[in-house]
């Protein structure tokens, strides 16, 4: 898994390398210090050589100072490298998401994408930042310390040849066994979070149906499960400490015994033995450290997997990259279009849609909920690709145009629309970053947003963010329409975009749109009044075309239209 993410460290290779060198240098000096110490005892004290003691003492302090400098440098390089890695990874995931088609986004859901991009990347980054030092330091310390012990007394050092593999294998077994248990634990944590989250957002439902007890039972079941899973995971992972002691203590005893015998036999110095003993901790501790790093990395595996999933997602909208082909008019044709969201789905969402929309005309779309109105229009700017059949604009399949050009030419106001934090101007400029004051005025006038914008003190510079002006749903919709108009699109699609606008303003918008003679307009609506004057009205029913015609034609011979028309006639002031 980790190898999939390592390339992000490439750019910061230099710093990773420098950091590694610093850690190694630091280790060397730390290891030299006990050697100097045992020299002081064995030569200095034994021979009563005060000069030797002072020189070696100063040397020790010098080593400490250098170790400190190297340690500080390490901190700097490691921070640059670790944070650089995190930032590069985050950037790539973010860019990947920008490439996602709507289908890709639906596949993950936006909230899960946000979690992956924020907490998952952080968890991984922390694991690497915290694990890097011990990961370099431990094996190096282990080897060097072993080396030193061999130079002090090769015979005695043989003890480590038994102790090290025993501890190493033991720790390895722990890490291996804990991995799957952590996974189980993580999934229990996820279910706990789901229950709490659902409970919080539905708290009014819970309370009004008096289901607090039921919710608690539900929670308790998962709580018990989490307890079981986390206990079994941690129970194994904490074995590393006693295991460590079970190996360390016999090692100490063995060294004391054999070393003592050697001293008694006169083949070893006392100082050598004490120096030797101080390496016991170092050698075995470095194994412990390594196992801790692996335990930590194991815990971050779930996050790694979730990140890699995003990176590996195949973007299903292929860009033709053809920059020469341009949309000239905006005549749209649907040729026997079939569509379903997932290729595995049994039924088509749209079936056999055959439709001709001439340049500059207006098409109104009506239909019940779930009749696939939104799906139909989303196929035009290739937010989704058709499953069968084709859609052409100016007699070229939409797939022949570059995606950028296609979307540049299709202005779309989505049903679930969003304004971003910033001023009204910031948001409008999304449509055209170079729009001047005149163009803004023009777009807002057509969208009927001018009257309320002018009422604000700061006009276009009114801040929509927190603490700013709260605009109503109807005003928001009008801004979204203006934003789309600024693109000066060849094709304009309004997906139920005036539902919260009052009827008087809606009429103004309708008139304004009618003045855009060259623009092909597609309007999805709930209210018959919104599409009454369209050149064609399309009635969608269960993903199929029920009827196409003008208001007069449909009113005469289409029962669905008649029903809609008469039921709304009284209600909405037609």
């Amino acid at each position, binding site marked *: 898994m980790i190898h999939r993410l390592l390339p992000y460290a490439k750019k910061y290779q230099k710093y990773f390398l420098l950091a590694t060198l610093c850690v190694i240098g630091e280790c060397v000096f730390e290891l030299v210090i006990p050697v100097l110490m045992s020299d002081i005892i064995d030569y200095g004290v034994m021979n009563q050589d005060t000069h030797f003691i002072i020189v070696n003492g100063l040397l020790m302090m010098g080593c400490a100072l250098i170790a400190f400098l190297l340690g500080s440098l390490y901190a700097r390089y490691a921070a640059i490298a670790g944070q650089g890695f995190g930032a590069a990874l985050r950037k790539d995931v973010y860019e990947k998401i920008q490439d996602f088609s*709507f289908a890709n986004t639906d596949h993950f859901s936006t909230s899960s994408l946000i979690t992956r991009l924020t907490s998952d990347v952080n968890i991984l980054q922390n694991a690497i930042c915290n694990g890097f030092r011990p990961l370099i330091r431990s094996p190096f310390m282990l080897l060097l310390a072993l080396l030193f012990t061999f130079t002090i007394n090769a015979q005695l050092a043989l003890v480590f040849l038994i102790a090290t593999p025993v501890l190493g294998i033991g720790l390895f077994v722990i890490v291996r066994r804990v991995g799957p248990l952590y996974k189980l634990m993580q999934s229990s944590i996820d279910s706990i979070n789901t229950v709490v989250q659902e409970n919080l957002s539905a708290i009014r439902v819970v309370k009004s149906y008096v289901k607090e007890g039921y919710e608690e039972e539900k929670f308790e079941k998962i709580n018990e499960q989490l307890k079981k899973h986390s206990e079994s995971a941690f129970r194994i992972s904490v074995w590393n400490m006693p295991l460590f002691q*079970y190996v360390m203590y016999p090692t100490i005893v063995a060294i004391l015994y054999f070393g003592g015998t050697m001293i008694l036999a006169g083949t070893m110095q006392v100082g050598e033995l004490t120096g030797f003993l101080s390496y016991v901790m170092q050698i075995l501790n470095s194994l412990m450290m390594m196992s801790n790093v692996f335990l930590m990395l194991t815990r971050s595996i779930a996050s790694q997997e979730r990140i890699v999933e995003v990176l590996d997602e195949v973007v299903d909208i292929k860009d033709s990259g053809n920059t020469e082909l341009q949309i000239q008019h905006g005549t749209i044709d649907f040729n026997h279009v079939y569509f379903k969201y997932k290729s595995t789905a049994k039924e088509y969402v749209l079936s056999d849609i055959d439709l001709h929309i001439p340049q500059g005309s207006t098409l109104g779309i009506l239909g019940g909920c779930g009749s696939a109105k939104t799906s139909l229009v989303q196929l035009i700017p290739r937010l989704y690709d058709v499953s069968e059949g084709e859609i052409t604009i100016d007699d070229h399949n939409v797939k022949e145009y570059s995606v950028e050009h296609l979307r540049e030419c299709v202005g779309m106001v989505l049903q679930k629309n969003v304004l971003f934090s910033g001023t009204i101007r910031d948001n409008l400029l999304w449509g055209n970053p170079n729009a001047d004051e005149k163009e803004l005025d023009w777009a807002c006038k057509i969208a009927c947003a001018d009257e309320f914008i002018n009422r604000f003190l700061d006009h276009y510079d009114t801040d929509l963010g927190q603490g700013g002006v709260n605009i109503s749903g109807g005003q928001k919709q009008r801004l979204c329409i203006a934003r789309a108009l600024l693109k000066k699109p060849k094709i304009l699609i309004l997906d139920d975009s005036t539902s919260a606008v009052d009827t008087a303003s809606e009429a103004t918008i309708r008139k304004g749109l009618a003045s855009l003679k060259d623009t092909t307009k597609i309007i999805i609506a709930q209210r018959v009044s919104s599409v009454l004057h369209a050149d064609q009205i399309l009635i969608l029913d269960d993903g199929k075309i029920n009827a196409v015609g003008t208001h007069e034609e449909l009113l005469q011979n289409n029962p669905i239209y008649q029903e809609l028309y008469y039921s709304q006639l009284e209600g909405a002031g037609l």
Partner: protein
Amino acid sequence: MARQLTNAKPQDIKKTLSSFKSYAAHHALALGIVAILVIISTCVNLWGTFQIRTIINQYLGQGDFEGFVHFIGLMVIVYLIGATATAIYKQLMIHTSSKILKEIRRDLFHHLQKLPIGYFDTHTHGEIMSRFTNDLDTVQDALNNCFDTLIQSFIMIVGTLTLIFVLSWQLSLIVFVCMFIMYLIIQYLSKKSKLYFSKQQKAMGELNGYIEEMVDGIKVVKVFNHEKQSIEGFDQHNGKLQDAATNALTFSGRTIPTVVSLSYFNYALVTCLGGFLTIYGLMDLGSLSSYLVFVRQTAQPVNQFTQQLNFMLAALAGAERIFAVMEEKEEINQGAVSLTPVLKKEDGTLEECSQHTGYWAWRHVHADNTVELVPLQGDVRFHDVTFSYDGRTDVLKNVSLYAKPGQKIAFVGATGAGKTTITNLINRFYDVHQGSITYDGIDVKLIQKESLRHSISIVLQDTHLFTGTIADNIRYGKLDATLDEVIAAAKLANAHSFITHLPDGYDTMLSGDGANLSQGQRQLLAIARAAIADPPVLILDEATSSIDTRTEKLIEKGMDRLMENRTVFVIAHRLSTVRNANAIMVLDHGEIIERGDHDELIAQKGRYYQLYTGQFELE
């Protein structure tokens, strides 16, 4: 682990600890055993190091081989005890902490269920969620590791200090000074690094905010070809975070080398001086050897102790926030009136019984212990109700209204006019301060909350579904409903046909708040859920706002059947849905400005007329 500690300082340690004690008390025995075993394990470690001197001086110095072997044998036994003690306390600790954590989690959730709606309205979900995630996590880590490590490093420090003092008080003075300096430096550095970390935290917050906004609006980004700009903005925030985090980590990363180097400095100093002392005969060689091992050992526990102390403080701060939630006042729930099933006798009088009869009555226990049975009918009245959420601005002003059993009352008005507040008050999500509300003539404050809410069903604008099957979700209104009842309710809400079209019908699993259903379909399920509960009073808060007029027409019959013989309060955006109400209340800034039925209000040519003809924009 260099975890980023935010709000690491607990405010009131004493209080938090005493709250925690009630959890620890259940496991006092286990924790006591753990503490004893930790002490044993630590003492064994210390003893072992201390005995190096004995071995060198007593046995090796004097060439006593037999004594030496005996002593080694003793060490084996003692060490074995120590390691075993470690193994046992580690397991016991995990076992106990898992239990304690489960109890805290359970109690937290339990208490959460009892909190009034006001709490949820004033705290974001993210905030409450982080009690379950971040805060409980830090508490768990602390319980798993800190308890024993703190005891251990404390004993190690005290023990080591005592022992080295015994070995050589002269040298120990130097060690003490060095350790004190080390402690001061660690404190200083961690204070400083907190500053850097808070900067990092801020940058992280900004980046996360940006990510949330942009990923949430990703579809708009795509429609406007705005990917490049979106990435540019991201790069800016990402870069800022990178800089801030690099600085913070650089700084905090210097703590360890500083402490380690200082301890080496100390080590060098002591070695030299110890060497001189030995030369001048003030100290023996064995003492010096074991002394030096001790000195080397002191750095680790000091480091560990401060580190664990920081974790512990973070955990305490987390625990404090958890306990603060648990101390929040519960919903007031006293009431002498409860709902009970009754038998209707031939003479019209009621008799309490324990089985479901289909008839219900309010069981009113009066102060003199007499029991009065009032038949449940659904008569709701507001008497001059004034209400405010914050105690300053009145959201409702002198509202009086009555709904006789079986009547349909509609509320119309702009957002913030107080429509939803009225429904909040009926089922006592909030309590009125002035005036009163009665249900079948009984003040709702006298009625037990469960009983009151059992007698009212509510369908909200935002439908919330739970992970589980479709049938489970409908059954939420009545847990013991049979499948036939579920299907009947679904048919009533006109949900049956779409449900049978789903791959697994009523057993189709919903996940993520029913994300795989359309808004309209979810609304239908919510209506079915209300239907199965079968209460005398029904509140529809924008219940049909997401259903198009055509589908609404289709479920109209079902809705009519649902509303039959029930008192219904309807809040609607679409005026066509309130037309046949018995009374329509037009609310404006908390006051009823117009009331009457549809024809009367149209004839008045007031606000309702304006709304109805589309001259006035809602929201």
